[in-house]
């Protein structure tokens, strides 16, 4: 095998991995919606369908030692980070086998093992925490990156600006990943921001920034690698904006009055999962059978997560006050 062939093979293997990851997120989210309608999952449920490339691409650029903080639309990041799908589903069921013992639900997935720090449901509330975690790493001289996902809505919050300033001031290794899906709940970007090119907010704080097509997982991966490498080299924060779109409503109870169906359909043309699938098939690295087989495996994995959640148990009520204080 030539060096070129070896690279192509490694490349294909990586792409297969990314595809499988995105398929898992997609299928898991579809199943979550189903389980919500069956009243197995309650509360708020925010689905990630359409945005899979962002979590998948960025997370693939991180090392297991890095910290990840995310928002209330975080199932994708949790899955990509390696949190067990069964533990996530059980969490959404409210079972004590869930990754947060069932106490958090869909919006509060936590998993200390994989350094996944939520599941933070106050918009932008976790940005200062991310800076603090990076500060701790800097003080303790750990060469780690803290990766903080948030949406375009968060970029309008004061905490975004305070966090950006502090991160730059203290020069701490934090990767701010803005998933710009164009809507802060139902308010379009143009009604939220005077400057809609969000990456332009970073230079004012002295932070390097970039924008990437968030519907293209390979592009996201490249951009993330570049960002993480920069952070590891300089120890400074970095701001990466991923242009993406959620195909489904904001949450399960949303009539989507604020956007046009045609707009949604146009974005669906750019479906990141189909895109990579087609790319791989075109490169002949993947046969239709292979794709089918992969989908079947993913399907089985999602079914197993539901089985696990179904078999889960309820935490006894008398333990309700556990974990108010340590």
């Amino acid at each position, binding site marked *: 095998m030539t060096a070129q062939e070896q690279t192509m093979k490694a490349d294909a293997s990586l792409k297969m991995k990314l595809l499988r990851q995105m398929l898992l997120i997609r299928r898991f989210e579809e199943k979550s919606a189903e389980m919500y309608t069956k009243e197995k999952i309650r509360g708020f449920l925010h689905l990630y369908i359409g945005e899979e490339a962002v979590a998948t691409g960025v997370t693939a650029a991180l090392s297991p030692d890095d910290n990840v903080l995310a928002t209330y639309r975080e199932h994708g990041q949790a899955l990509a980070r390696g949190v067990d799908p069964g533990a996530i589903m059980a969490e959404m069921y409210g079972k004590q086998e869930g990754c*947060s013992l069932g106490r*958090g639900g869909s919006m509060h997935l936590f*998993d200390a093992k994989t350094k996944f720090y939520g599941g933070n449901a106050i918009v932008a509330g976790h940005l*200062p925490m991310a800076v603090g975690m990076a500060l701790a790493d800097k003080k*303790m001289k750990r060469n780690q990156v803290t990766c903080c996902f948030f949406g375009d809505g968060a970029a309008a919050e004061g905490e975004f600006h305070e966090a950006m300033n*502090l991160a730059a001031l203290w020069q701490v290794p934090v990767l701010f990943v803005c998933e710009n899906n164009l809507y802060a709940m139902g308010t379009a970007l143009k009604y939220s921001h005077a400057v809609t090119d969000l990456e332009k907010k970073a230079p004012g704080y002295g932070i390097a920034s970039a924008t990437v097509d968030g519907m293209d997982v390979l592009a996201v991966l490249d951009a993330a690698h570049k960002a993480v490498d920069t952070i590891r080299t300089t120890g400074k924060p970095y701001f990466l904006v991923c242009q993406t779109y959620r195909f489904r409503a904001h949450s399960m109870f949303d009539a989507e009055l604020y956007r046009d169906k045609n707009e949604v359909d146009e974005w669906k043309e750019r479906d990141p999962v189909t895109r990579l699938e087609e790319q791989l098939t075109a490169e002949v690295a993947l046969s239709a059978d292979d794709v089918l087989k992969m989908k079947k495996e993913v399907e089985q994995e999602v079914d197993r997560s539901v089985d696990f959640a179904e078999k889960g148990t309820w935490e006894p009520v008398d333990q309700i006050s556990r974990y108010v204080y340590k």
Partner: protein
Amino acid sequence: MTRLTYREALKQGLREALQSSDKVFLLGEDVGRYGGSFAVSKGLLQEFGPDRIMDVPLSESGFTGAGIGAALGGMRPIVEIMTVNFSLLAMDQIVNNAATLLHMSGGQLNVPLVIRMSCGIGRQLAAQHSHSWEPLFAHIPGLKVVSAGTHEDARKMIMAALLDPNPVILFEYTAMMNLEADMEDPLPAVDLSKAKLRKSGKDLSLITYGSGVYKCLHAAGELAKEGMEVEVLDLRSLRPIDTEAIVASVRKTHRALMVDDAWQSVSISSEVSARIMENCFYELDAPVQRLNGLEVPMPYPKHLEDAAIVQPSQIVNKVRQMLG
């Protein structure tokens, strides 16, 4: 015995905390180069360096959140919010993050963070800089809230708070900074969860905390001259509240008067009163009474400010009235 100002006691407490571990650092507005808004941390920057004594921009939510993150990351930060008046800007971080993470993560993530705030009334600072917001924080499960009403606690509470694995809000009192008192040397460690009897008596319980402690002790001294033996119970911990100590005191004296400068409605005094009713109603020989700050935004002129907060003479009069 050593004679110290309240400020010096706080500084010694901070120094002890900083010396206890390299993971401990202080971050807050003007804590370093300025020396602390009330000169509490004056000289500590020179002593411990800028990595341990961190000046921060005016971003209360940002640096409080950073403190939470650093605590999650294994450090032991002490966040100073210059005064309680600015704490609302950090309320989201304190209430939605610090107080909830342990529970929300099913016990995986605790936040060993100390947040110091100075509470200030009595320096003619008017409506936006004279708040007594201990009750706001004492309302929140997941937080521990303590109040340093004496020099002893000013000196020892920081270290005790630092040793606690939970987020602890520590209230200090601006008006007491220059007050001198004798203190044992060395002082024993304090137990954050317990109230403390500052003076024993049999006729009536003055239940107080923070800026009320010395006022009550002063009033008790006056009353002693008239033959009234009044007990002074310093709650110290406002969350959790030491119900046992309250009940023990009321069982002994059968009369209770709460004293604190916070607005009366939905206050610590409301809570203490309710606990007395729930736990020792049949020990009461007189209705529970309260002396609180008047429910007005703090006025600027001195005479109106004095009228808005509890004065020792009011305590004396109220006790006389209650004891017939």
